[in-house]
């Protein structure tokens, strides 16, 4: 396999394995270095042990525009606890042999440190399979995607409910790894219900994405919601609910237990 196909290939394998079991892939999100470095590491390992298929690993950033209050507060706390890009890469490295890791990183961090080529090299060296850059929409993404392609880091694009049909088709065409479908108009965070329009939205996304899996995120905070979304998408991303659980632990072990309990339930629910 060429280096170029590496990241996307690992992601494809993980989605295919879940599909072979007749269920959607489970992709928990976590914030590196939150609530502190060791707890972050414990959470990452707990995700693997609790049956995650892929992990979305957030790199703490000072100005996370796509994130709601829970993850924003986690960014702030992780940074206050001393987290840096290095902390996130170490967290990635600790689990990347066991599971595909997709980084969630804001564009200013991609461009710092000597640019997208250097970022992609660092991410690949830490074992990352892909990266989601939530503030780099189609139209601004070309040079960064080229740099990621050259390093074999899959650049996962986002689709929103407000995305036009022609734009959706274009985004699906340039997707690497999978397409991240944002379930609802808004920032990340738990919501009472899965939007009624999501099923239709997921169907159009899947039609445009073809072979590329479509994973849904934003607002999924219960095992039942995960199961509901799992019926209409290839993957389910759970973020704020787990970040909240991780933050409630007073020790790394407590954080790990809290997220593992929720994830195990979600995993069972997805298989059901």
């Amino acid at each position, binding site marked *: 396999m060429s280096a170029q196909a590496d990241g996307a290939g690992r992601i494809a394998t993980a989605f295919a394995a879940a599909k072979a079991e007749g269920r959607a892939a489970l992709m928990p999100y976590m914030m590196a270095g939150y609530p502190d470095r060791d707890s972050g590491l414990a959470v990452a390992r707990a995700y693997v042990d609790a049956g995650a298929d892929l992990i979305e690993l957030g790199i703490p950033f*000072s100005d996370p525009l796509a994130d709601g209050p829970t993850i924003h507060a986690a960014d702030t706390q992780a940074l206050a606890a001393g987290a840096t890009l290095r902390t996130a890469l170490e967290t990635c490295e600790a689990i990347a042999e066991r599971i595909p890791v997709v980084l969630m990183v804001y564009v200013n961090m991609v461009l*710092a440190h000597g640019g997208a080529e250097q970022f992609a090299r660092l991410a690949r060296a830490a074992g990352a399979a892909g990266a989601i850059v939530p503030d780099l929409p189609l139209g601004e993404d070309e040079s960064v995607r080229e740099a990621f392609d050259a390093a074999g880091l899959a650049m996962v694009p986002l689709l929103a409910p407000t995305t036009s049909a022609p734009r959706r088709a274009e985004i699906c065409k340039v997707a690497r790894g999978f397409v991240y479908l944002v379930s609802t108009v808004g920032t990340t965070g738990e919501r009472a219900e899965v939007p009624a329009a999501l099923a239709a939205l997921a169907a159009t996304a899947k039609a445009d994405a073809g072979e590329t899996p479509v994973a849904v995120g934003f607002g999924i905070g219960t095992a039942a919601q995960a199961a509901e979304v799992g019926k209409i998408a290839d993957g389910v991303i759970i973020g704020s609910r787990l970040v909240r659980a991780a933050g409630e632990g007073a020790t790394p072990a407590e954080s790990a237990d809290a997220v593992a309990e929720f994830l195990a339930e979600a995993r069972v629910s997805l298989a059901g």
Partner: protein
Amino acid sequence: MSANEREQSTRAVIPQRFGPYGGRYVPETLIAALDELTAAWEEARDDPAFDARQDALRRDFIGRPTPLYLAERLSERVGSQVYLKREDLAHTGAHKINNALGQTLLAQRMGKPRIIAETGAGQHGVATATACALLGLECVVYMGTEDIRRQAPNVERMRLLGAEVAPVEAGARTLKEAVSAAIRDWVANVETTHYVIGSAVGPAPYPALVRDLQRVIGEEARAQALAAAGALPRRVIACVGGGSNAIGIFAPFVEDAEVALVGVEAGGDGIESGRHGASLGAGQTGVLHGSLSSVLADEDGQILEAHSVSAGLDYPGSGPEHAHLRDTGRARYFSVTDEQALQALRELARLEGIIPALESSHAIAWLLENPLEGDGFDVLCLSGRGDKDLAEYVRRVGESR
């Protein structure tokens, strides 16, 4: 170039980029709204009915044109002629109303009943609340709690005008976090809401939209200078935070190669202290609030907090067009410290009977240290009045004697 040609060249197309800077670095959810806004502005600015309504309100509601005032005692002190462009005399006390009125008229035309805005010094918040009261639109203004403390009178003004002031507790609780909070609100409510951004920053088309709406400052000043002095100024000087008053007064002079353009940033405690707001003079290329520009950030790309006595300049970025004007050498950017700005505020009050905003005081401070050599005159944008800053002035300097 004739006035007509100048107009044509600016109206050709709404730029997404200024050199390498600008762009739309925002969540995908907002792209449709930015497209909609771009199309609406392209249509509105070519609609004579929109122009006529805006012109009438500029004249009768804002009080435009604002005077270009030959400040004689200040000129004597500096040693060369200085004209002040009196945006402090615009309704609500600053240039911010030009943009707020234009954008709310545009929102009304787009059928968006709800307006959100961010504010630092409170001037943009007051201007937006004022325009919303005028047009009968719902208005929510995000404001950091540190700025709420520093700018209490403006908070009361916004509430009196019927706006909701939404306090922002994140980060340093100043302008940067207020912008972020407004953008998050917009992401969640984009279908019913227009975001009136207050400076020439943000994702395209905002930097160009805000410049177009503030351009009236420079158009008037240029015509007034020619009428009063029979010549163009040697230098045009303005303070720069996000940079809307500066880009507004610079824009009509950009093609006049003989006119120097000078932007003055917040030097805070001094550039070497690391506590400042000089993102053009001491920043790095990066993305903040949706555009690529010059920002204050660390080696990891984390955005740093700015520091300035002036809430309106307390921002770690600048508009992308300023970054481009800096790179091309067409405009030059300097900074003055908090201390110099506070002294300049007092100096202008005593010399001219004008209490300038702390933001505008930065431009005055630079002028006091950098008199024009030889013939000719300067035009300085007095972007706002200083009533809002009195409490902060007294806190920093002691009694106003």
